[in-house]
């Protein structure tokens, strides 16, 4: 029975080999499973770590952006404040521009009035210039220039405008100290009606304004204003300046031209007299 023994032995050997192979396979499989488990664990851990990092990064970015938004909001606020400041300055400049423009206009009016008043020594021309100033620069419709006769102490109209509106304006008279006109000559102070009066309240005894014509403290006459042009409702700031200018410079111009006319007349008389003496001699 050696063959039978050999085959059993061989079979046993093969069985042992198979068992060995099987054990190796099982061990390998177990190792694979362990490795798989380890890798899964590692993967899970890595995934966990990655998510935390990502969230952390996102939070950081959000915080940075929030900070930036706050910075930008602060910048916007500052810009808005600056804009409002510049806008306010612009408004201020615009207002000042209008004021300067008005002052410029007023100065031009005063310059022209002053220039014209002293441009001639002819009495009638000076009167005409005063009339033009009161019509064109003040905007008066009816007014009279009254000069004082020192001998009679009485004021008489020497120039006027608006006789169609106020009949009798061309022949006004007033005693010093009497009525509004006479009172202004006595006090030397201008008279104005500040509020726009009812037309019925204005007459030759109740003017809108009376401006004394003064050389220092000596009053030589007045300008009495009774009505303004239709488009002009009341006196403006420059009118008062014009009145002040007229009070001084018109008085000087009228007085100087009057003296000049008188001296011219006297010179002419003396010249005629000298001519007569020379001829008869």
């Amino acid at each position, binding site marked *: 029975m050696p063959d039978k023994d050999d085959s059993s032995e061989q079979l046993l050997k093969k069985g042992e080999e198979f068992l060995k192979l099987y054990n190796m396979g099982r061990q390998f499989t177990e190792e694979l499973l362990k490795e798989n488990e380890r890798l899964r664990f590692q993967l899970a851990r890595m995934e966990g770590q990655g998510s935390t990092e990502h969230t952390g990064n996102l939070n950081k970015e959000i915080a940075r952006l929030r900070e930036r938004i706050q910075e930008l909001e602060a910048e916007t606020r500052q810009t808005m404040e600056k804009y409002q400041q510049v806008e306010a300055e612009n408004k201020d400049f615009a207002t000042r521009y209008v004021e300067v423009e008005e002052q410029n206009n007023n100065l031009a009016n005063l310059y022209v009035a002053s*220039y014209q008043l002293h441009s001639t020594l002819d009495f009638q021309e000076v009167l005409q210039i005063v009339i033009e100033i009161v019509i064109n620069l*003040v905007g008066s419709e009816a007014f009279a220039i009254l000069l004082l006769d020192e001998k009679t102490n009485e004021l008489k109209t020497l120039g006027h405008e608006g006789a169609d509106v106020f009949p009798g304006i061309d022949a006004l008279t007033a005693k010093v100290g009497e009525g509004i006109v006479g009172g202004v000559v006595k006090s030397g102070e201008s008279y104005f009606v500040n509020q726009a009066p009812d037309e019925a309240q204005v007459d030759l005894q109740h003017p809108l304004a009376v401006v004394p014509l003064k050389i220092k403290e000596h009053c030589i006459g007045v300008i009495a204003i009774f009505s303004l042009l239709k488009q002009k409702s009341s006196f403006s700031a420059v009118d008062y300046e014009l009145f002040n200018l007229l009070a001084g410079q018109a008085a000087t111009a009228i007085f100087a031209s009057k003296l000049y006319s008188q001296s011219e007349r006297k010179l002419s008389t003396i010249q005629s007299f000298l001519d007569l003496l020379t001829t008869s001699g």
Partner: protein
Amino acid sequence: MEGLTFLVVEDSPTMRQLISFSLKRFKGCRIVEAVDGVDALKKLSSEKVSMILTDINMPVMDGLKLVSLVRQNPDLKAIPIIIITTEGADEDRQRGLALGANAYIAKPIQSSHLIKTINDLVPGAGQ
């Protein structure tokens, strides 16, 4: 733009000076003065004028007659005209504009108003 030439028609020397004073704000401008309508027509025949500024109440020939004659003249009718007058009633304004004036300013004038009116009529006139 070449300097403008203004014709100022006004019998009052005070107003002529005041208007000219305001117009001098236009750089390089030239100002020609006339004392009434007839004088203005004479000046218009010898001068190339960019704009006429005229009063209404004047001796010899008034401003309304002047406006009417300028508008009838083919050589002059395109010249812009501004009336500057003490006549401030609406009917006066309407009459002036109906005759062909481009603008109507009632006295007393504000320099800034006059400058604005000129700038409106001649865009690019500058100051």
